[in-house]
């Protein structure tokens, strides 16, 4: 029997055709996906899975000279929300309010906003993270952020400055001046995540580590800074001064051991700090130095050989130039030596010496001491003061006024540097606040500081002897330091008011600038009180502050008392 092969059924052919077409389409698509556009689709998929995160660089720490932290960066948490994910904002705000320390109604208004991201609290303590997470609030998230903290509070607020909380960028003080070094370089993390947002263990995990910022080691000694702050606060309470500044310098190196200004502020909480409290007055504010300027005039005269400490002058009762009458405010003999002129702070004697020195030479020495020019301290916003060119000086009262510290404006730092020059045998050394920068690898960056000779050693020694006499028998007796021989000069000037372009009738600037011990000065201390109401002279208001700060500084530096 013959078996006839069956003819393919039409439907079977149709199915076959459909299958062939279907497989062809699938094959085509497969070729497109896996072949022609494989790279494009792979890239799209990878892009959906990959997440690039910026790794914030650790901001460098700021230390005092003994390695004590003045500014550190720690982890903190910030709480944010996506209001679109929150069904019941009232409940969420009530639950969250006690955890983040905010009013529920404030949170509610934030949660009711028509955005997808809103901060509810910034830079909270890290320990609160667990409590907030356990509250399990939908749409509320916790983010770890770096936070700048100043553990010593207002101790060195004006020196260290502060950063902007949002991005830790330096805004004031050394935080601003050295922001680039402190900030470091941010890194990045490329991580492959699943749809749940979890990192895929074998996925791409590529880290470009952040380069931490450099640390700053300051010249500030915290104990001296604290003692200066306490002494200044006590003096302001005693005298009713509106403000005050103290600068303590190591004259041999130009290192600032302490720099205090009042009123001050706590950089950890600046919510209610008035603008004027933020200024580092010792560097940014100028005043007319008054009698403390006599050191410049007389050392210039000594250096040029016009006078010696023993040269005597017949002191008149007063000197009148046009409408201006100059007088002395201390009782003294009619004839004074140069030493006695300094000791009793004789305006008239100094004017006579200044007259011999002349405008040009006086200007030369003032410039050499750094007046009229910023010292170049590593601090932002330093004022250069005002020192007019001698060609602009009037032919009447200008020399006389300038020789006793009027018609010239200086900062407390500039005046401290004048005395530091005398203390350092006539060599001016650029003042500085940062001793060294230590980068992330531990390499210490050295600094070179400007130096220049202003006076001869002999003139500096003679000047120190005169300053010693000021404290021992002269106007600065309240600056005496038990156990040590010290020297310095008082200064009291009428306050010049910028607004009215005139001198105040009832406000003065009282100052005392001195050095200790006088035989081998280790510290130079400038004290400036702005508008004291009682004890409103350099001798009564500022000199006792010098005494207290000098004693603390000498103890802290381990300087043995003077024998005898």
């Amino acid at each position, binding site marked *: 029997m013959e078996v006839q092969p069956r003819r393919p059924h039409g439907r079977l052919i149709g199915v076959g055709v459909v299958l062939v077409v279907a497989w062809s389409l699938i094959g085509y698509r497969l070729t497109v996906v896996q072949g022609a556009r494989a790279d494009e689709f792979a890239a799209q998929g990878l892009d959906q899975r990959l997440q690039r995160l910026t790794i914030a660089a650790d901001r460098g720490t700021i230390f005092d000279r003994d390695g004590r932290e003045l500014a550190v960066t720690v982890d903190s948490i910030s709480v944010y929300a996506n209001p679109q994910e929150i069904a019941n904002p009232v409940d969420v705000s009530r639950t969250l309010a006690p955890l983040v320390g905010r009013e529920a109604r404030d949170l509610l208004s934030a949660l009711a906003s028509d955005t997808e991201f809103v901060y509810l609290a910034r830079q909270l303590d890290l320990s609160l993270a667990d409590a907030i997470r356990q509250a399990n609030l939908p749409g509320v998230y916790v983010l770890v952020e770096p936070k700048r903290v100043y553990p010593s509070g207002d101790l060195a607020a004006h020196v260290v400055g502060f950063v902007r909380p949002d991005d830790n960028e330096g805004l004031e003080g050394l935080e601003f001046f050295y922001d680039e070094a402190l900030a470091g370089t941010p890194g990045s993390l490329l991580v492959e995540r699943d749809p749940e947002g979890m*990192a895929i*263990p074998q996925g791409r995990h590529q880290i470009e580590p952040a380069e931490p910022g450099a640390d700053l080691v300051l010249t500030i000694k915290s104990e001296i800074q604290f003692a200066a702050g306490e002494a200044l606060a006590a003096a302001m309470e005693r005298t009713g001064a509106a403000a005050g500044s103290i600068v303590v310098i190591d004259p041999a190196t130009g290192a600032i051991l302490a720099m205090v200004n009042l009123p001050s502020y706590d950089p950890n909480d600046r919510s209610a700090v008035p603008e004027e409290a933020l200024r580092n007055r010792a560097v940014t504010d100028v005043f007319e130095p008054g009698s403390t300027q006599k050191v410049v005039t007389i050392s210039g005269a000594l250096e040029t050989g016009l006078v010696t400490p023993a040269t005597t002058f017949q002191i008149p009762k007063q000197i009148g130039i046009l409408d201006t009458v100059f007088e002395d405010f201390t009782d003294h003999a009619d004839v004074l030596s140069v030493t006695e002129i300094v000791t009793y702070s004789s305006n008239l004697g100094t004017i006579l010496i200044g007259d011999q020195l002349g405008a040009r030479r006086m200007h030369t020495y003032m410039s050499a001491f750094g007046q009229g020019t910023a010292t170049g301290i590593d601090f932002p916003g330093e004022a250069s003061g005002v020192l007019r060119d001698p060609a602009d000086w009037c032919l009447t009262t200008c020399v006389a006024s300038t020789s006793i510290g009027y018609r010239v404006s200086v900062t407390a730092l500039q005046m401290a540097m004048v005395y530091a020059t005398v203390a350092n045998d006539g060599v001016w050394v650029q003042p500085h606040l940062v001793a060294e920068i230590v980068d992330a690898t531990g390499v210490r960056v050295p600094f070179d500081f400007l130096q220049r000779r202003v006076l001869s050693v002999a003139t500096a020694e003679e000047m120190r002897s005169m300053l010693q006499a000021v404290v021992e028998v002269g106007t600065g007796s309240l600056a005496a330091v038990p156990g040590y021989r010290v020297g310095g000069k008082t200064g009291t000037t009428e306050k010049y008011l910028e607004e009215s372009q005139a001198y105040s009738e009832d406000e003065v600037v009282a100052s005392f600038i001195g050095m200790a011990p006088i035989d081998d000065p280790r510290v130079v201390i400038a004290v400036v009180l702005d508008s004291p109401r009682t004890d409103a002279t350099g001798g009564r208001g500022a000199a006792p502050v010098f005494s207290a700060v000098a004693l603390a500084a000498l103890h802290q530096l381990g300087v043995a008392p003077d*024998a005898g």
Partner: protein
Amino acid sequence: MVARSYSLAYPVSGTRPFHVIIGPRTRQRRIGGWIGLAFTLAAVFFIMISTRVALDRNAFVLEDIRNQISVEEARYWELRLRVAELQSPARIADLAAEMGMVYPTRLVTIEVPGLGSPGPGVEDRWVELKMLLSAQP
């Protein structure tokens, strides 16, 4: 006459006309080979999976260690901050004041003769003094 192929000209038989008879040993060897191959493949597959699992586990461990490092670093900085706060001169001064420690109002300087240039017997006395001090609790 229509030409037909040989295979279509005759009915298809249920059994092949010729076939190779494989002896039981040979069959066992072949089956053994297949089984061996299967086991090998299974073993390779198992090793691959195990390796993958181990790698994943290690990745998790590494991730965990990274997290621990972050936590410990945060803790380290918290402690440094705490130390700095404890060392703050203001805090120490307050504590000292509470304990009754104040700056003396009068300072007395004691001059020790021979301190600058030790005279005869100073070293011996210093040794005695050191022994005395070291015996203190």
